[in-house]
């Protein structure tokens, strides 16, 4: 598969405080082509975020392989994974999405510069304005509403046209307007050929992005 995300028999666990091994991801396989969507389902603590971190290359699997756009992420060195993540992966969390001392615009541009790959300021402004943040570009996170903050996070995630957009409950706690804006941005990036990986409990969000559904607990894949 040239573009998309592929998980092959991925396993991941951890050792709890008592020293007992705990399996979080047990032999998950999944294949989503570029432009497609994968919905990760499961209760809180079931391993959705861990799976996303595995795709992002933040964690390494205990077994199995993860490939993004044909690159086996899990085989890369840490610095190469960081660079790959900076270039190819957009990540949106439910909360804690922004760097508190930076303005909305800076939250798009400064991280890019910190990765050594400066982004175009005009593009950043345009994306923020498209997400209805015109007039909020110079505001810091504490001056923005929850919805506005989430839109800034989405803007940052799509800024450099990632191959994969990982979104962890991106519309939770958002008002309708913000939800629409966030979903619109995600749809645009997916329609541009990116793979969308969504972790959500929200049936409306899942309906809005039809695609492959993975039950993280059972490992069952439904198309």
């Amino acid at each position, binding site marked *: 598969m040239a573009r998309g995300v592929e998980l092959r028999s991925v396993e991941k666990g951890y050792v709890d405080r008592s020293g007992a091994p705990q399996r979080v991801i047990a032999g998950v396989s999944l294949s989503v082509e570029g432009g497609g969507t994968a919905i990760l389902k499961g209760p809180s603590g079931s391993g959705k975020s861990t799976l996303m971190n595995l795709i*992002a290359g*933040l964690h390494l699997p205990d077994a199995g392989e993860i490939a993004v756009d044909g690159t086996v992420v899990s085989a890369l060195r840490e610095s190469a994974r*960081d660079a790959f993540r900076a270039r190819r*992966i957009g990540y949106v969390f439910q909360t804690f999405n922004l*760097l508190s*001392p930076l303005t909305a*615009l800076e939250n798009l541009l*400064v991280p890019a510069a*910190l990765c050594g790959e400066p982004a175009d300021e005009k593009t950043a402004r345009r994306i923020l304005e498209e997400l209805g943040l015109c007039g909020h570009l110079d505001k810091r996170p504490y001056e923005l509403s929850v919805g506005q903050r989430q839109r800034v996070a989405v803007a940052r995630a799509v800024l450099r046209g990632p191959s994969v957009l990982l979104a962890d409950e991106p519309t939770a706690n958002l008002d309708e307007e913000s939800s629409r804006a966030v979903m619109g941005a995600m749809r645009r990036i997916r329609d541009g050929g990116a793979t969308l990986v969504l972790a959500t409990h929200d049936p409306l969000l899942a309906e809005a992005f039809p695609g492959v559904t993975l039950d993280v607990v059972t490992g069952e894949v439904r198309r």
Partner: protein
Amino acid sequence: MMPRTRSLAVVTVALRYLGERAFATWVSVLAIALSVLLVVAVGNINFAVKKTAVEGSIRYPLLVGPEGASSAQLVFSTIFHADKPTGTIPFEAYEKLTRDRRVIAAYPIAMADSVGSYPIVGTDTGFLRDLGVGAASGALDIEAVGNAVLGSEVAARTELRVGDTFRGTHGMVGGEDADEHAEVTYRVTGILGRTDGPEDTAAYTSYAAVWKIHGEEAEKEGGEDKYHLGKGRLTAVLVRTANPVFTAALEREATMTPGTQGVDTGRAIRRMVDYLNKGERAVELFGAFTLAVAVAMILVTLVMSLNARRKELALMRSLGIGRFTIASIIMVEALVMTLSGVCLGVLLGHFAVWWSENLIKDAMGVAVEPWIWTSMEGMAVVTALAAGQLLALVSLVWTYRMNLVEEVSRD
């Protein structure tokens, strides 16, 4: 302006985080600054004291004063005019020295009164000429009784000019029994050029005038006391000899003469400098201790702030920002705090010396040079910067080793 390069972005983010916790940052910076300030100020003042003392000992290697007083007291009183005279010696001691072939120059010193907070020193015109600075205005004329030449600081601060008159205060500066001579008026005949030494903060008259004023009062009050220099008495004699061998011989002879003692000013000042050096070491130790406290404070501030922003640092990792880059941000924060503290400390230290220049001159008769760089200051700056580097390195390693990925994976 948006940072375009990684290093600029690191500095921008570090400064923003420091700004976000401005109070803690300022407290840390001030703590460093205070430790540096202390060492800078003490170093500067000590440097000036040593310089003045050494210059004084070079000019007059021998001092003859009353027996019983410590050599330090005699030096402070006669060279710095910063202590009360401890007794008197007969004028014959001075006359004998002027006749001695081993002596190049000898000057009588008779201290008793003050003008405002400045001492009036009875001497002769030769002493004033020997200073080599000449008169800034008027003439160095103190021959006639009542004539006075003012040091440059005295003139500036009392606003007395040539031709003006003033009344001397009976007794030495700050003396409990100081009172104004009702009937003695001095006339300013000249203003001494600036010496940057104790002469700037003294007024000079003839020793004969001191005798006249005090002799008359002593007669009225029934005898000589420590403030009533009777006729034929001096508080000390400053002596320049032809060579150190003569200095040693004359010192011994003066000490063997009943009622007088000789003081090798070079030796006395070396002893004083030794004391000052010990004081410097104590200040350096104290400075090092306060610096260590300040550095520990910065470390605690950094660790607390690291824990408070674990989520944000984890977010950076999820955005593809490398561990080293994140650690660099924390390192820059530590460096900015210590560098700012050092710079502020150096500035405040010099400013403090500049601000207290007159106080120091009045209290110690020493002209400080507020903006010079002393070796003690250099050592303080190097130590503080080294501590800052160490702190930055610790922060770098600490942050680099933090497991931020665990933070990202929390559901």
